[in-house]
Structure formats: C-alpha cells, structure tokens
C-alpha cells in the first residue's frame, strides 16, 4: 500500500513539474516572438487572447490537426523516433533543476553531470531526424549540427569544471548554496559570457542556427517533418533553450537565491527568483536572435575550437591557481 502511495506521490510531483514546464515553453515561444518584433519595431503576435498570449496554443492546435507526412523512402522507425527523442530529452533534464532548497524532484549527487549528459544526448534527435529523412538538405543540416553541438559541448564542459572548482560538489543544490555570498558571475564573468555563447550554439539558436539555415538548407534537419512531429521538434528546441537558461542561472546567477538577503527581496519565494533569472537569460537569447547576423560555418568552428576551448582551459588553470594560492579550495 505504502509503495503505491509513494508511486502516486512521485507521479503527482512529476506532473506538478512537467505541466508548468510545458506551459512555460508555450509562453516562451510567444515571448521570443514578441521580443523579436519589439526590436524590429513590429507588433508581433497580438491577436489571439490578451496580448496574443494564446498564439502558441493556437499554433499547436493547428499543428495537431495537420497531416503527418512520412516520406516514402525514409527510415520510418527512426524518422518517427527523432522528434520523440528530442522532446523527451528536453523534458527529463528538468528532473534535477532545483527551484528552491526543498523543491527539487531528484536531488542527485551528480546533478550537473546529469544535465550535461542529457544536453549532450540532445544531438541524437537532430541526427536521427536528418538521416532518416533520406533527403539532402536534412542530412547536411544534421551533419552540421552534430559537429557544432559536439564542439560546443567541449567548451561547456570546461566551463562547468571552472564552476565546480569553486564549489567542490557536483550537486546542483550545493552549487547554488556555494553562491550565497558571491554569485559566480562576478569572479567567473568571462566564463559566463563563453557559457552564454556556447549555450546559443548548443541549442542551435541564432547566430549559430546553421543546422536550419533557411537560406541554404530550407529548414535543415526538419525539412521533411510536418504536423505534430514538427511541433515536437519545435517545442523540444524551446524546452532545451529554457533548460540552458536554467543551467546558466544555476551555475552563474545563484539559482533560487535572491540578489541581496534583505527585507524586500527575501520575502519573494525562491522559485520566483529562479524563474526571473531564467527569463532574464531568455530575453537576452531572444534579443541576440533579433540583432546578430548568422555566422559562417568555418567561423563557428574556429570560434569553438580555437578561441573558446583554449581560453576556458587557461581560465581553469587560473581559477585553480587562485583558489590554491589563497587557500580557498573547497572541501579541505
């Protein structure tokens, strides 16, 4: 009986996390389009519902009722699996995100590694989709994105090492609590910038949206997808972007902590702070989409391997030496 109770309690907790995440993904698509329109002095989606808030829901309804076309010469199993993989991976990562000291679904020891692993698996959805379509543009898009995401993962990994050196634990809650006095964005500011740019590349956002560069590749890996399957790719992408924003705010912006531990700030509940930080990072993402032109592919690779990787490696050495010299290393 008690096992059954625990089982249902877990299901309830998962739903309690999953449904807000899905709703906020829908809202974030709207926000993205509004910010984009704001920069370009347009109105953006403003018709459906108040301020056009229900635009994404209307779009999703449209996608649901559209026909799913599966190309005759595609590898059908993998073709159908690809958007499912993208969506699933984008959602399971939320299990370890701590919204406050107690409000976390799975407080595991290696939380940051889990996040890193899941985000590195994200490339499979794209490769599978691109290959299974059995068509030239999707395949080129998939190959591009595989190289791009693997390259930028390396620099994200090194940046995470920088943060871990200051924390001494792989647990996400410990990472947040270690920033009680000083957010890591201040001592590790260059790493924050590099993390932000790598996150753009990792999630295939402009200016690094080469996997789906519409001028060259129609729509990249999702060219052959239609209806609900396309919508899954699309929502998965935005869920991934939100996840990267959450990762950035946990690693550098102090997660659920309030900026100053004083009266007007510390009565606001912890999850609100995390959501505000995620929103801040997301608005930066959206602004960059609107104002920066697309990179060329060789420039992208050069940036990843020849600039970010050496710089963040040097910063690891610097951080480690600094902590060692001033005897600030955690855990001893």
């Amino acid at each position: 009986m008690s096992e059954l109770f625990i089982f249902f309690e877990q299901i309830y907790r998962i739903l309690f996390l999953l449904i807000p995440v899905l709703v906020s993904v829908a809202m974030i698509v709207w926000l993205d389009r509004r910010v984009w329109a704001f920069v370009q002095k347009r109105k953006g989606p403003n018709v459906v519902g108040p301020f056009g808030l229900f635009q994404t829901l209307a779009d999703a309804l449209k996608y649901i009722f559209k026909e799913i076309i599966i190309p005759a010469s595609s590898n059908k199993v993998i073709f159908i699996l690809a958007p499912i993989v993208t969506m699933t991976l984008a959602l399971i990562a939320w299990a370890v995100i701590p919204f406050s000291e107690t409000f976390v679904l799975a407080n595991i020891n290696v939380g940051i590694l889990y996040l890193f692993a899941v985000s590195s698996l994200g490339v499979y959805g794209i490769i599978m989709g691109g290959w299974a379509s059995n068509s030239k543009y999707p395949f080129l898009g998939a190959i591009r994105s595989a190289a791009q995401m693997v390259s930028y993962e390396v620099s994200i990994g090194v940046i995470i090492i920088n943060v871990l050196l200051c924390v001494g634990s792989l647990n996400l809650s410990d990472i947040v609590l270690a920033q009680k006095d000083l957010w890591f964005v201040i001592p590790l500011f260059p790493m924050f910038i590099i993390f932000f740019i790598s996150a753009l590349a990792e999630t295939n956002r402009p200016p690094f949206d080469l996997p789906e560069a519409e001028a060259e590749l129609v729509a990249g890996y999702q060219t052959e997808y239609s209806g609900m399957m396309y919508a899954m790719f699309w929502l998965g992408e935005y869920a991934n972007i939100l996840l990267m924003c959450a990762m950035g705010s946990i690693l550098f912006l102090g997660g659920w902590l309030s900026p100053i531990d004083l009266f007007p700030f510390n009565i606001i509940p912890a999850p609100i702070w995390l959501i505000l930080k995620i929103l801040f990072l997301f608005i930066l993402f959206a602004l960059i989409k609107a104002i920066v032109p697309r990179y060329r592919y060789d420039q992208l690779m050069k940036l990843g391997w020849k600039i970010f990787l050496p710089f963040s490696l040097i910063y690891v050495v610097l951080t480690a030496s600094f902590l060692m010299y001033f005897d600030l290393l955690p855990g001893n």
Partner: protein
Amino acid sequence: MIAHAIVFYIFSLIAIVSAIMVTVSKNTVNSVFFLILDFISISCLFIMIGAEFLGMIMLIVYVGAVAVLFLFVVMMLNVAQQKNEWFNSSGRSSHIPVGLLVSIIIFFELIIVIGGWKYKPDLLDSIAIEINTDLTNTQSLGSVIYTDYIHLFQLSGMVLLVAMIGAIVLTFRQRSGVKRQSYFKQISRDRKDGIELVDVENNKGVKIDA
C-alpha cells in the same frame, strides 16, 4: 528489493539484446543506434550499483561524443554496398577467419577473467579496494586517481596526447590554393591598399587583377 531486481534484469536484458543486435542488424546505422542503446542501459546499470559518476561519464563520453562520431562516419558511407562486398565475396575474403580468431581469443580471455577465483581463491579480496562509504563516489574516485595514482594518470594522459597528435598527423593534409580568412588582414586594410584610382584612356580600357 524485488523492484530493484526487476529493474536490474530489464536493463541487463536490454543491454544483452542490443549488444546482439549490434552485430546482427543488416543496416550499419541501426547497429550504431543499438550500440547507443547498449551504452545507455549499461550506464543505467552503473547507476543502479551506486556508481553514478561512472554512469554519467559513460553517457557523456561514449554516448555524447564517441557514438556521435561513429554515427557521423557510418552515415557518410555507402553502407548497403559495402556490407554486401564484405560477406558475398566468399573464398577470397579473409575477414571472417581473422574476425573469428580474434573473437575466440577474446572469449577465452573473458572466461579466464571470470573464472579467476577458481585458480586463486583470494582473488576477490586482493582486487577489491576498501571503499570508504562516507565519501561520495566522485570524491573517492578523485582521491584514487588524482592523489594515489597521479603519476600513472599523467602517464596515460601522455599516451592519449601522443595518440591524438598521431591521428592529427595521419589525417592532416595541406591543400594549396585555399583562400583563408585572416581577421588581422581584413581589419588592418585601409583605403590605400584597397582602392586604386586609375585614369582610363579613351578606347583603351584597363587591366585589373594584374
């Protein structure tokens, strides 16, 4: 406890079946996907025995990087054609005997490893390091690798570095006639280098790109 056993058997069944499917499946890309499934279920097994760090590293390194490169290569090959050549050129082909030899040797090695306790009764005691249960396994792995065996670790790092340089040297080829972009050149250009004013004589024209 019984739930634990059930989950263990599910994961190990998936691992074994997908390992068999890697070798059996006709399509090489499908083989790689089964290989990925195998890696994932093995990392789940690692997590189940409490080695969460190894499980995650397995996911990151093998699934996140190595298998992507496998997939990358395999997708580029014309797989169907190659597979036929591999098996159908019977008589001349020497792949299968060599493969058999290697796999038989590996099989016997595995049997020797598994049957080790038969020949040396205290084998398990001699290979098991005492585990400090107070530490998380990330910390204990770290202290073993980076403190107790740091020199061996550095040595293996050097071996990897040499292998990496070797791979780069083997695949590197310098193509001539490639126009590379140089930021410094672009930025340091000024009007004098870029623009030349020429008085063109009537009906003569001027030769550019000289």
